[in-house]
């Protein structure tokens, strides 16, 4: 039995307690924590992301898999020791939130799940986030990306304010602005000068990873 493959399979099925049990077994059998994380948990989450993009699985499946992933990571955390070979650095940092005046968060939460599944650190600012709060958080956490979601026709215009504020700030050289949400289109993103437009949560995670790892390599 390949424990890592089984962890990935059970995560994809959303079976949190089984995932945790197998993680413990793997740890007892001295499987490296980093391998369990990257190949078991993040690997399973990546497969879920691909299936979600193709409408082979749906939002409940993603949420359940993310629950299994997060609880599995908590179990592994003591073993992912900083400064050792077991340390797992995040691949980049994204500041994420729903724009000012917008209270929707399911889409944002899916983006967070997918991005964490790619090994990115996500600073989730929640809903109704002001321009200042995005910039302050990006500065504080040395983020590479500010990802803002607008889910209403009336709030999508706040995204423009964020793009403009970042352009004139001291973080403009180091931070890209990603936009998305139900009413947001590529044309709209182009018109406001956003750096990245993401059509869905999985694409957002893929694009964010590309940006962050390119910067890391650079």
């Amino acid at each position, binding site marked *: 039995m390949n424990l890592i493959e089984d962890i990935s399979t059970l995560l994809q099925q959303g079976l949190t307690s089984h995932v945790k049990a197998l993680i413990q077994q793997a740890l007892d059998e001295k499987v490296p924590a980093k391998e369990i994380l990257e190949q078991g948990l993040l690997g399973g989450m990546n497969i879920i992301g691909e299936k979600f993009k193709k409408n082979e*699985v749906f939002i409940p499946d993603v949420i359940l898999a993310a629950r299994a992933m997060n609880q599995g990571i908590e179990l592994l955390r003591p073993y992912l020791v900083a400064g050792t070979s077991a340390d797992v650095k995040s691949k980049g940092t994204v500041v994420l939130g729903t724009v000012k005046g917008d209270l929707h968060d399911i889409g944002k939460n899916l983006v967070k799940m997918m991005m964490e599944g790619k090994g990115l650190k996500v600073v989730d600012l929640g809903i109704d986030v002001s321009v200042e709060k995005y910039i302050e958080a990006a500065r504080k956490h040395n983020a590479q990306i500010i990802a803002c979601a607008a889910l209403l026709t*009336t709030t999508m215009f706040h995204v423009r304010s964020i793009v403009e504020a970042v352009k004139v700030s001291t973080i403009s050289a180091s931070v890209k602005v990603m936009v998305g949400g139900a009413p947001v289109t590529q044309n709209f993103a182009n018109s406001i000068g956003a750096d990245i437009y993401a059509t869905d*949560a999985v694409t957002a995670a893929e694009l964010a990873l590309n940006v962050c790892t390119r910067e890391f390599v650079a």
Partner: protein
Amino acid sequence: MNNAQREFCTLSFSNEGLDRGAKEETFEPWDLTIANWEKEGLVTDFNEKLCVPGVPTEVGYVYKDRPIALENRYYMTMLEAPIFNLEKQLGYDPIKRMAFRIPFLSYEEQLLEDTEEYMVRRDRDGWIRKYIKNSELVIDIQPIVTDEESWEKHKAHTLEAYHKYCTDENMERLYGPYRAGNQKGDFPIRFRLMGFFWCPRDLMGVEEHLIAYYDYPEMIQDITRFQLDIYKKQMDKILKIIKPDILFFEEDLSGKNGPMLSPACFDEFVAPCYREIIPFLKERGVKNIFVDTDGDFTILIPNFTAAGVDGFLPVDVNAGVDIVEVRNRFPNVKFIGGYNKLELIEGPEAIDREFERILPVIKQGGYLPGIDHQVAPSTPYAHYLYYVKRLGEVMAQYRGENAQK
């Protein structure tokens, strides 16, 4: 031909006996849009009379100048007149919009905490929420249903309110005034019921509800069973007073990237509800049964139609739903909506182009064209008036016994 007959024939796939296509809007207006139009020349008392309640509830608007008796929240006809008057003023054919609501909104409001920055309150739906002062931000703290135990308590509480307020007397008093006009066909009645995906979400919260299909499947089925039992008892009586011409279930179950639940999950938890309620309603005279899906629902069309649904609204263009393409794939499915609201902002040329785009579906029938959800506040009033004028012209030109081919 009366107004109800016109709507019915417009929703058929034939022009026989039809004088012209009906001219109707998809949903009631957005208060922010009306407020902007008032600055651009619209004279109305709509926003004087009504407001969106500060409490997140299932009621779209409430009257500003009067307390709302609880039975009015359940036998919901109170919003009919202001919306009817506004639509008439804008040039639409008459529709009376009403609903029946299970008495989930039956808790006393209770202030739990009050600081300089926020207050925490138990709302009428039983949820506990945090209201940030000097802001419109409302944060959900605790839903009314979190597990089987809390559902059983909420069910018992709701049944108390049901027996107290959902009486034959209240039902007659609130729906009875529409009996005569409905029988004469003076106006079609568009009637709403909360759907079987929406209801557990309203009780539990978005993510918790989706997880509950896996963690608490029996509870989900008990919630929808509760809905079905009350709907059947109530609609059996309501349909002896009025006969809705269109009855739609509010589900809001899809977004830009598709439905929130899989076809398999839909077939297990939602479809059985429709298979039970739709024949019941049709045997009692409801002619057309639609579902308000939002977003891109197209993956679920076969599942919905297998369960008896006739059509869908609002057919959200910006979610990627192309009504022409969907009609080609599903020739017998009916639609309300499907007109891209964002084209109104662009002006007359864009408005005309959008009518050209949906014209094949208009000509085929089985379609009440309308805005794909609500008109955005950034829409100029003059553009909307142009749209309504053109809608009437197009429906007269391309539907009816003298329709242009």
